[in-house]
């Protein structure tokens, strides 16, 4: 899923400063932690309280969408709710904010989140771990299901580098060395032979940025 963090309320207040009537739109899609109706309502209350102390009056409506990254759903479900709205504050990832901007060009859509990465929610530890870089040339079959593009700080294809120590990364000892994980995983699978093969630089043209795909 797409991992996001809330922007500071100060930054949100700044971006909202020209507007008084705002629709806060949650996203029930893959944004994590969940940024649905509860989060939209909590944010509206916090902003309303904050506005009071700034001597400002802000009117909020709240809503949510199954996913903000779907242009049809946005037009179908969100557009009818935008009467008398000057700006939309989106709780979705950057993709959602841009979908809204494109589908509702007469309105301003502002982000309430910073979008961080695609990752896994490790529930027990309450952490989110990045594990896919959307490189367009998946090599997980060759690396025991562990992605060195996303999880190795250097994105190496022929690791580990010399900086790995106690299975941790030299760049940040809190993080696992992806190549140590790959080695152990392949050892368990009895497939260390894969590592004997040298991997040439990956195909950077697999996805020509910006990515586009015709269905």
């Amino acid at each position, binding site marked *: 899923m797409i991992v996001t963090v809330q922007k500071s309320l*100060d930054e949100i207040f700044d971006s909202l400063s020209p507007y008084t009537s705002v629709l806060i739109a*949650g996203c029930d899609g893959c944004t994590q932690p*969940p940024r*649905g*109706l*509860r*989060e939209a309502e*909590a944010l509206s209350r*916090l902003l309303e*309280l904050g506005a009071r102390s700034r001597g400002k009056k802000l009117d909020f409506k709240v809503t949510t969408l199954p996913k903000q990254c779907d242009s049809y759903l946005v037009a179908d479900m969100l557009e009818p709710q935008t009467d008398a709205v000057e700006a939309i504050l989106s709780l979705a990832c950057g993709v959602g904010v841009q979908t809204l901007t494109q589908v509702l060009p007469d309105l301003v859509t502002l982000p309430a989140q910073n979008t961080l990465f695609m990752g896994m929610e490790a529930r027990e530890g309450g952490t989110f771990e990045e594990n896919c870089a959307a490189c367009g040339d998946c090599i997980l079959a060759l690396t025991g299901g562990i992605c060195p593009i996303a999880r190795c700080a250097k994105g190496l294809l022929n690791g580990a580098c010399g900086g790995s120590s106690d299975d941790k990364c030299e760049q940040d000892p809190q993080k696992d060395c992806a190549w140590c994980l790959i080695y152990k995983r392949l050892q368990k699978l009895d497939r260390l032979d894969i590592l004997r093969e040298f991997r040439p630089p990956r195909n950077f043209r697999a996805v020509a940025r910006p990515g586009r795909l015709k269905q």
Partner: protein
Amino acid sequence: MNTSVTQQTVAVTLNEEYCSRCSICSSLCPFEAIKKEPETGKIVLEIEKCQVCGLCYSTCPATAISSVYYDTDSLTGYLKRAKQEYESDILVIMCKGSSPDFEGVEKLFGVSKFIPLFVPCIGRMPEEVLLRALTMGIRGIHVLACDEDYCRFDKGSAVAGRKILALNLLLEQLGYGTEVITLKRNSLKVKVDKDKCITCGNCVFYCPYHAAKLENGAASFDLDLCRGCGLCVALCPAFALELENWEKERISTLISKLSLEMEKPKVLIFRCQWAVLPPVDEDFGSHVRAIDLPCAARVDMLHILEAFQNGIDGVLIAACHEEECKQEKKGSKEAQHQVMVLKERLSQIGLGDRLHFCFVAPRYPGVFTAELEQFTEGIGADFLKGGR
């Protein structure tokens, strides 16, 4: 906080002079807080283990155990006053953990006018109080206890059932008729609106009892496993869940009602009903009100924000210590986390000091009182300065 001061009053005490060493208390204590010393035969109470269920107090045949909460005198006093206030001769005693709203109680027992008495666990009701109620002119007594396996004090509900059975036999022999005291059991559970569910899986992960599953595109609950803590309800991002009797809307209505009857500066307490045992005649004066919840886990961050929007100046959350949380030790810890996250966000708009979370236990009633006093003073001082 100065613990030596606040820990002076202890909720349960054992008077050795009266103790006949019969061991009934130690055999009943769900928390192994009362034991017989093998060498001396003496009964000893280890207050640090006691969770103040009151079972020992209500069953001790020698009145060697005293309790600062719901003792015979304060309960009898309440009944005398309440009999006039409610103009009824029907008494309904309810465990807070399982009692539905008044309408629900009416349906369960078929009574429309009654004297309500809420207690944390029916197991703590001394038989003497029930007998005194009858001598006071109360005609019928209905008791609503939790389902036995739902009892937060393990044995409280079961013991209450046996006591009532025995009392009814006694009363029949005394000529009061049969079944003077009726006992019913009830448990409050989660309700799901499948149309609102976004299958995020929060309830599945957070449920302390593994009652939640994602099935056929929506959350579903095994209600036999659900213990009604409300953790899933407070964390559901889509408002797809409700907890019976502690519905979102009902708590909202209560917040605005309480705010209206308070005077500035206003302090609202959300407290776990097992962390603080309120006296039957609790009186906070005009600046403070409390909302009791089935677990701190049911404290909804939206309700805290709503309180501030309603003009409440300070919100205090009182929860059980993590290791004493009746919801598999999960509820109170999660509540603390949620409150701390909200506090950080509130501090961004200058309201961080208006929210306070504390761990308390009913064994030391002074700790909660001191927390409340300290918090109220802070809010009051801020208010005098011109506040917000």
